[in-house]
């Protein structure tokens, strides 16, 4: 049923349709409206047979979910930014224990300096944690991805993060089709836990693993991720068959045919980029757009296939590995190894900086690109504030050697 909903509430309704039995969270902007929505659904009886717990921290939130999953019930939590960092130890723990928890990450910048607005730094901080990571482009996809997330998590026995751009999606009202309970029940079977704390068949969960076996544990996790790509892709098409919407899967291409330049992005910015692509193509350009829906496991082959015929790839990413550069762009570079294609990294929208069509258009239109660009950077401030103190120190040492 189509409704005008805030992104967070759409997510809450979608999660509720997945019949979680334990929901726990600790408030942090911009995730708060999701848990408020869920709390209300539970208290009002719209979501039955579900425990809602207000916990004392994000560490507690994910830990409660870990306990609940290990005891054999479907569990859900949500967080953002610093909250994710605060629970990061449990993030690694949940995937190590192969517990199919679903968590929404209302994407937000990481401090310091503290900043509550959107970027993908928080998501990137757990990119190697072994969780499956989806990025939602729209409120509709945000809602849909949660249904897919539970399905994939439980089939794969792996936790899933659904990334939803903070404020841009979480707090934006849009028309969202909330599927019927019956349809979701058909798509998502009841949870059949692989691990459960059972007094009749006691098990120890969470052993210490010595060097003799640790590599194998990690290798198996890696293999599982690689093996799951087909499942995730198939889940997307099944979802489309069932619900008539192209949500989920690994990648979503736009105007890729005959495109010389393909812009790669994740999350809500893809919509803006598509508008720019349309405008540029209308003006005679050969542009395409590729959205990465499933960032982890990293769909390397699918990416390569989608991008290999292009001449130039522009990666627009909302995060920065300080001292390295773009994260996604490097991963794409690796995926495209051997292909004769130029890869350009655009760092955009950090800490909620607006990404406008005009600057994107201007940038995409350039003939010669720098390898990496900070989009809409206020160069006057940089020029004013940048002090190469280290090289100055090295220079000073060279003229005046350190006394022995």
């Amino acid at each position, binding site marked *: 049923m189509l409704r005008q909903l805030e992104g967070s509430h759409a997510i809450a309704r979608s999660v509720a349709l997945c019949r979680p*039995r*334990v929901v*726990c969270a600790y408030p942090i902007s911009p995730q708060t409206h999701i848990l408020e929505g869920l709390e209300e659904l539970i208290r009002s009886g719209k979501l039955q*047979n*579900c*425990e809602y*717990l*207000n*916990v*004392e*921290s994000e*560490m*507690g*939130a994910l*830990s*409660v*979910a*870990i*306990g*609940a*999953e*290990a*005891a*054999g*019930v479907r*569990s859900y939590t949500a967080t953002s930014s610093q909250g994710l960092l605060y629970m990061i*130890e*449990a993030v690694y*723990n949940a995937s190590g*224990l192969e517990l199919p928890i679903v968590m929404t990450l209302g994407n937000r910048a990481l401090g310091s300096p503290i900043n509550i607005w959107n970027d993908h730094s928080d998501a990137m901080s757990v990119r190697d944690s072994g969780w499956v990571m989806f990025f939602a482009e729209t409120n509709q996809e945000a809602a849909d991805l949660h249904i897919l997330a539970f399905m994939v998590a439980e089939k794969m026995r792996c936790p899933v993060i659904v990334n939803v751009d903070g404020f841009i999606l979480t707090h934006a009202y849009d028309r969202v089709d909330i599927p019927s309970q019956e349809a979701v029940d058909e798509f998502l079977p009841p949870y059949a836990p692989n691990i459960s*704390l*059972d*007094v009749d068949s*006691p*098990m*120890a*969960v*969470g*052993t*210490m*693993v*010595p060097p003799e*076996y640790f590599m194998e544990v990690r290798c198996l996790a890696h293999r599982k991720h690689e093996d799951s790509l087909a499942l995730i892709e198939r889940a997307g098409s099944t979802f489309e068959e069932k619900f008539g919407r192209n949500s989920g899967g690994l990648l979503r291409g736009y105007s890729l045919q005959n495109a010389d330049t393909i812009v790669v992005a994740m999350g809500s910015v893809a919509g803006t980029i598509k508008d720019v692509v349309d405008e540029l193509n209308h003006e005679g350009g050969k542009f395409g757009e590729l959205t990465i829906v499933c960032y982890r496991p990293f769909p390397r082959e699918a990416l390569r296939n989608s991008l290999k015929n292009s001449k130039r790839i522009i990666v627009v990413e909302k995060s920065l590995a300080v001292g390295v550069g773009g994260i996604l762009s490097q991963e794409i570079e690796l995926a495209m190894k051997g292909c004769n294609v130029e890869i350009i990294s655009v760092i955009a929208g950090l800490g909620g900086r607006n990404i406008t069509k005009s600057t994107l258009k201007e940038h995409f239109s350039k003939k010669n690109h720098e390898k990496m660009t900070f989009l809409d950077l206020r160069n006057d401030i940089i020029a004013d504030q940048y002090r190469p103190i280290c090289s100055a120190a090295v220079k000073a040492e060279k003229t005046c050697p350190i006394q022995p």
Partner: protein
Amino acid sequence: MSHPTIGNRLVKNVTVQSMRDRPNCLTSGHRACQGCGEALGARCVLDAAYAATGGKIAVVNATGCLEVFSCVYPENSWQVPWLHSLFGNAPAVATGVAAAFKQQGKSDVRIIAQGGDGALSDIGMGCLSGMFERNDDVLCVCYDNQAYMNTGVQRSGATPAFARTATTLPTGNYLGNDAQTGKNLPKIAMAHEIPYVATASIGNIHDLEEKVTKAIHIRGAKYLHVHVPCPLGWGYSPSDTIKIARAAVQCGLFPLFEMERGKIMKSTPIKDPVKVDDYLKSQRRFAHLFGKSASPEALAALQDIADNNIRDYALAENANG
């Protein structure tokens, strides 16, 4: 005046630990040091809970000695459902288990969160406090060996005054762990006004089992603080674990009591009192308080702590009437 033996052939099954078919929730083959008080404490607590519930318990274990020595792949010493997540989150994980069991209609399965003093009084204090204030249906058991033993005997918030640890090495005028520091976790638990808080010692298995048996059936948050001497960290012969545990109680430094909803309900009077000095002398971690560089002030301060306990918890033999 005496301490009861664990069993007695003249009385049938006085303790779970004396039962031939006791559950041995923590079974043989674990890698605890010789004479480990924590291994014994964990078995006693869980066996009592197991016996009291007909085997319906599930355990969440914090990281620490207990977890490391009991469950290293491929050797698991537990015979009950057991879950280890992290160092600081055991009470929260247990909350999750409790919520799940409630949803599954398995509230007859009782949940125990357990860990050391580091896991519960320091790194996991937030999660513990949260579990308490929500009154989650979990029995949290702290095996207190008064320092971070697993990492090599560093100071914790439960390390007693003047104790030597790897991070409070007495040197010069420094007499080991500063007095007036540390925290009293049972009192912190009590401040949450949860239904049940108690202390116990592996030197008194009867008392310990009674408290576990009582606590395990109470709905809501429960806390049990068990004193478990550590031969390695405290510096005494492994054979003396029980003797030391008993002496800690007998000298007044470790009072045994029960609290309900924030009030002291009952304390166990001291049998055969022991001087604090004698308790301290038996451990290398206090050796610097004796001999050449002896500190009468430090000893007096520790005796004061014991005396205050004896007064505050009414531990004198005739105090309870």
